[in-house]
């Protein structure tokens, strides 16, 4: 079992005929993800890799192939539009990989999703990989391993680094989830942590945060109150200067808040070990988990 996906996840890829969309669709298919359709307006009727039909709209993909989940690889100017379309067509999970989506677009799309009970992951995220079940996004499959650890992160390659170390230490994962580094994202730490807490197969989990916002602090408070599973954390950006955007649109210390030090303090106050270095994450988890 995993969070957010299961054996019934039927995927439509929006932007499947694009360069990135096509490349990663191949990778997802190779991992066994059940991609039932692709969408590119004007390309309806084509086939992707001779096995996935391409439609002009998500609605057609839902109606004809029963898609219930969308993975979006469309350029920033069309990303929010693609999210509206997927939600309107009835997809209940949407993973938006696109980087560079205007924040105001995300502010506007959010109530549309809430009204329809749709979960969005991202944008500007690597997506989700549930080892042995499905890959929705761009996480490399070579580094994952089935097992009992959940991982949620605002980052991409830093996530891979940690997954790599977990797998190397024999700690497989239920789900590796990159929630994205933008200021407004569909699924945040709290949502992911609640899901991991409720997932019977997830025995422990790792939370990788970074500077900006206070999602880590909120998650810490929630964990302290509600979660009995072992959790360790890491925060990137201790050396980031204030007022500068560190790559991710959301990774910025502004007005003196959102610093790594604050987050570390809140997490530790909630009894969650915060690793000093990425390589300390696995030992810290092993120590509190006693496994």
């Amino acid at each position: 079992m995993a969070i957010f996906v299961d054996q019934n996840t039927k995927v439509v890829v929006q932007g499947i005929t694009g360069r990135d969309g096509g490349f990663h669709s191949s990778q997802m298919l190779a991992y066994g993800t059940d991609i039932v359709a692709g969408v590119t307006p004007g390309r309806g009727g084509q086939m992707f890799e001779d096995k996935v039909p391409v439609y002009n709209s998500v609605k057609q993909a839902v109606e004809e192939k029963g898609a219930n989940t969308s993975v979006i690889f469309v350029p920033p100017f069309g990303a929010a539009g693609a999210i509206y379309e997927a939600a309107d067509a009835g997809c209940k999970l949407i993973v938006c990989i696109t980087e560079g989506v205007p924040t105001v677009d995300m502010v506007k799309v959010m109530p549309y999703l809430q009204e329809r009970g749709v979960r969005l992951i991202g944008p500007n995220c690597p997506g989700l990989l549930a080892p042995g079940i499905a890959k929705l996004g761009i996480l490399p499959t070579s580094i994952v391993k089935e097992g009992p650890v959940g991982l949620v992160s605002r980052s991409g390659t830093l996530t891979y680094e940690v997954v790599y170390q977990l797998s190397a230490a024999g700690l497989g994962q239920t789900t590796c989830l990159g929630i994205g580094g933008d200021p407004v994202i569909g699924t945040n730490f709290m949502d992911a942590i609640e899901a991991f807490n409720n997932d019977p197969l997830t025995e422990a989990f790792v939370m990788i945060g970074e500077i900006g916002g206070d999602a880590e602090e909120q998650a810490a408070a929630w964990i302290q109150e509600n979660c009995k599973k072992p959790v360790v954390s890491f925060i990137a950006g201790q050396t980031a200067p204030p007022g500068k955007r560190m790559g991710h649109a959301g990774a910025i210390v502004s007005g003196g808040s959102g610093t790594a030090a604050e987050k570390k303090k809140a997490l530790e106050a909630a009894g969650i070990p915060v690793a000093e270095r990425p390589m300390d994450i696995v030992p810290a988890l092993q120590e509190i988990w006693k496994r």
Partner: protein
Amino acid sequence: MNIHEYQAKDIFRDFGLPVPGGKVAATVDEAVDLANEYGYPVMVKCQVLTGGRGKAGGIKFSPTEDDVRKNAEAILGMDIKGHTVHKVLITPAVDIESEYYIGMLIDRNTKRVLLMASAEGGVEIEQVAKDTPELIFKQPIDPRFGLLDHEALDMGMRLCPDDIKKARQLASAMQKLYVAFMHSDASLAEINPFIFTPEGKGHAIDAKVNLDDNALFRHPGYEDLRDLDAEDPSEREARQAELSFVKLEGNVGCLVNGAGLAMATMDLVKYYGGRPANFLDIGGSSKPEKVVNALTIILSDPEVKAILFNIFGGITRCDDVAKGIIAATESMDIHVPIVVRLTGTNEEEARALLAETDLVPAETMDEAVQKANELAGAAS
């Protein structure tokens, strides 16, 4: 993207906010001409992309031509927190009876634009938020309906409980600010202070706007608002090469794929006693030309004594990345040592390729950082 007060005011004016007239001058003579055009008294206001301009002496009330001349002379060229003043805004001075703060930003928690307002205007709002948070009123704005009349008026009346006319002016300013925020794709928009004259007329006499970089593509005109003089030359070059780069004061140049890993790398340099020279996310592809651009930018800083590549090869294979790095470094004339750490698919093949070059290979991130720190320390 941060823009200057006068640029923010232009945007505010377009959306109907009550902003006094004003134009910028780059020379003392221009400043005097403008002041003569507006009539006295005027304000002479430095245009730099930082706060605390008043405290630093960059904003001067100027009742006469002589004052304008004297103040413009003093302010033009002044250094304020590392920012050189190239332009001053000349704007008619208005009598101030009371001052308010109105601001909007993206609130990550509600995922909405958050209106914040306070009767403690004209001072640093961060300080108010810290000392007396109860004096800042907040209203998240539902994007489906906008800032509604009663929501804005309620805020106006909290700020001005005893003067409905002022409350209505504040409410109207808030509604216009919201429209300006959304239409300009701002990430922050502030009026501090919004003032009333003794006659009860409201004016936005200062303005601050940050624009969402991700949305610049749909505002082609906004690119002209960028103050190239205010940018660090290396950051400008990086932006033009579409690299995510932040300059720091260190000697270990960092090239990393991914923002989170790049921050973690900087942190690790510090952890092992070194000083990172920069943040740089080279992104998903490692094409030689992109590596060349990144190296050029980092090497333009004479402080850099060693370079550290930290690449996690996920879907891209490490041997391909190694080839890209080798091609790039061979095409350049580089005098500092380069440590390369490549992990992921085909990492061993990659290390084999590196072994045939002058590049210093490392197996782990920790090893790579320690080596880079050592090399930089030895060279300093």
